[in-house]
């Protein structure tokens, strides 16, 4: 039987925490440059494809009637979903005082911000005419026309820009005390940078008091905001009358899917950071176990919502929805559908096994499968409905062209570049919060020890 370990070693010294985390900001190793080069190469593919698409229009992407949405929108939903776990879970776990979040929330919040920045590209790219992007902004045009505020696409613009700015502020505010630590322990350009962005933080009681309230209020705002963002993204589909999209359970289904893919991405990055930055002391197997259990719970919610959707369609009376469901399971996209089902509903049962939860390479592989499932889920939302809609004369199977593939592939490179730069410029573990965690755990252990000593029965007297 495996004995459960502590989330963190409470005997670790505060100075050691500073040393270990600041070491991760030092000159990168060869593996870092290789990873950065690969990401840059991937991003370059996207740039080339986008330049080509800009020159010749959307023709080479295979986007056409009825496939006006395709891989770009599926990828947009994927990245928006990915952005959810970082900030949302960080905020929820902060409010419920789950202190095991402390060593892992920083990179998860960074993941949120970078996912949103990546997602933001896709509506622009999908427009084709990128130069007309400003049409989605809420301003009055020359002829006195405003955007259609009844459209979920306009809601998207509001929700995503609010979420992006709130997530960035949440990430930044949470980092200020750590930036002051960096300022006090670095030299050269780094010192100048950290001095500017730590905003003169000194750690006095006024600052901590205000900081505590600010962080709590931001967390309170972010929870309903994050839920609203993905509900609104689901409304892009659900307010239409298309089969497979016009479903009441779409908002919670999207939110659960978003949390699921975000948790899977957290596990992937957890394993990578733990290995490359040697953060075994902070990103412990106990914390991985808790993250994995949370992911498993969310996977089961997502599975349940999927089954509800299938059941409601199967037993319902909408023949278009039913035919579409059958086509998903048996038609040209069947392999995508069944891969999604297997990776999203069956593979997560590995997370229920303690032995797997504690084995980092297994968790890494499992997290990749889960993310693959989540990507396929988005594809299965977008493509089959457009392939087999109400009008049978429009039925058409469509696969993305190399231009779409290149841009989607490059988006992972773009995300990788941002993330790799972040972890080398900013501390990817929150030093002050890990210190708090260590301090409080130590105090609890001491109090428990003292209490046990007081309550110890007097055996001598008894004998």
């Amino acid at each position: 039987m495996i004995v459960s370990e502590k989330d963190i070693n409470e005997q670790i010294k505060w100075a050691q925490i500073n040393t270990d985390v600041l070491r991760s900001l030092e000159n990168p190793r060869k593996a870092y440059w290789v990873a950065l080069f690969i990401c840059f190469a991937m991003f370059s593919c996207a740039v080339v494809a986008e330049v080509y698409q800009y020159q010749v229009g959307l023709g080479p992407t295979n986007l056409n009637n009825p496939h006006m949405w395709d891989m770009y929108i599926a990828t947009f939903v994927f990245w928006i979903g990915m952005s959810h776990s970082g900030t949302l879970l960080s905020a929820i776990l902060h409010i419920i005082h789950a202190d095991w979040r402390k060593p892992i929330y920083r990179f998860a919040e960074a993941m949120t911000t970078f996912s949103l920045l990546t997602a933001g590209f896709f509506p622009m790219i999908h427009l084709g005419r990128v130069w007309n992007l400003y049409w989605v902004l809420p301003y009055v045009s020359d002829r006195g026309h405003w955007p259609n505020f009844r459209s979920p696409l306009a809601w998207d613009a509001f929700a995503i820009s609010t979420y992006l700015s709130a997530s960035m502020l949440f990430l930044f505010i949470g980092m200020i005390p750590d930036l002051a630590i960096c300022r006090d322990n670095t030299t050269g350009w780094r010192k100048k940078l950290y001095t500017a962005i730590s905003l003169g933080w000194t750690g006095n009681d006024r600052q901590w008091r205000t900081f505590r309230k600010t962080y709590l209020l931001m967390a309170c705002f972010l929870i309903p905001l994050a839920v609203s963002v993905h509900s609104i993204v689901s409304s892009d589909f659900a307010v239409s009358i298309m089969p497979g999209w016009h479903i009441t359970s779409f908002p919670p289904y999207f939110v659960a899917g978003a949390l699921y893919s975000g948790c899977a991405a957290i596990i992937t990055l957890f394993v990578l950071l733990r290995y490359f930055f040697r953060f075994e002391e902070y990103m412990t197997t106990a914390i991985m176990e808790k993250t994995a259990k949370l992911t498993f719970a969310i996977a089961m919610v997502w599975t349940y919502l999927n089954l509800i959707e299938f059941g409601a369609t199967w037993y319902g009376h909408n023949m278009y929805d039913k035919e579409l469901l059958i086509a998903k399971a048996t038609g040209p996209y069947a392999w995508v559908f069944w891969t999604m089902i297997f990776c999203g509903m069956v593979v997560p049962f590995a997370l229920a096994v303690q032995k797997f939860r504690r084995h980092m390479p297994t968790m890494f592989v499992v997290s990749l499968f889960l993310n693959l499932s989540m990507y396929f889920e988005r594809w299965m939302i977008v493509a089959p409905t457009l392939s087999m809609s109400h009008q049978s004369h429009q039925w058409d199977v469509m696969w993305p062209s190399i231009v779409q593939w290149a841009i989607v592939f490059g988006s992972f490179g773009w995300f990788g570049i941002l993330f790799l730069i972040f972890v080398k410029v900013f501390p990817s573990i929150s030093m002050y919060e890990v210190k708090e965690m260590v301090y409080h755990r130590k105090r609890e252990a001491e109090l428990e020890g003292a209490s046990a000593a007081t309550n110890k029965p007097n055996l001598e007297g008894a004998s």
Partner: protein
Amino acid sequence: MKNYRILGLFNNFEEAFSALHDIRASKVPGVTIDDVTLNSPIEHPEIEEVLGDRPCHLPKFTLAGAMFGLVFGFLFLASAQATFLVQPQGGKPVIPLPSNFVLVYEMIIFFGVWATFFAFLFLSRLFRKRHNLYSEKVSLDQIGVIVELDKSKLDSLKDLFKQHKVLEIREEDIR
């Protein structure tokens, strides 16, 4: 006349707490707890209690921001939609409340969050030049107690700090 500032660096919260407790108990006449600033590497609500009630008005700014988002958001949308009065609406409302609710909801959060952020910058008194007594050891693992006082009380306070195992004392003239 408070013309001196003194910093005592302590090894842990317990020692800093007992020093603050003695200041609060007026063991150094003429020095009150209101003259004290506590610098620490982590937030510690329990120890801040000994400093007395120091209210934080940040939630008022947040509320103001959120209210502004509510009013401005609705007026902004409604005034934009009102320009459609000149166009045929086909029976649809000029100002549709359900869709405006979604957008106003986002604007409440947007302005609430930014108001909170700016209130944080303002109320934390960030962007101020750090005084000479700032110690980098506070960002490492030590607790700093800064007191502004009259020079005549300096020795008494130093003695008090020493009783509580202060690691280092620094002082500066702030006249």
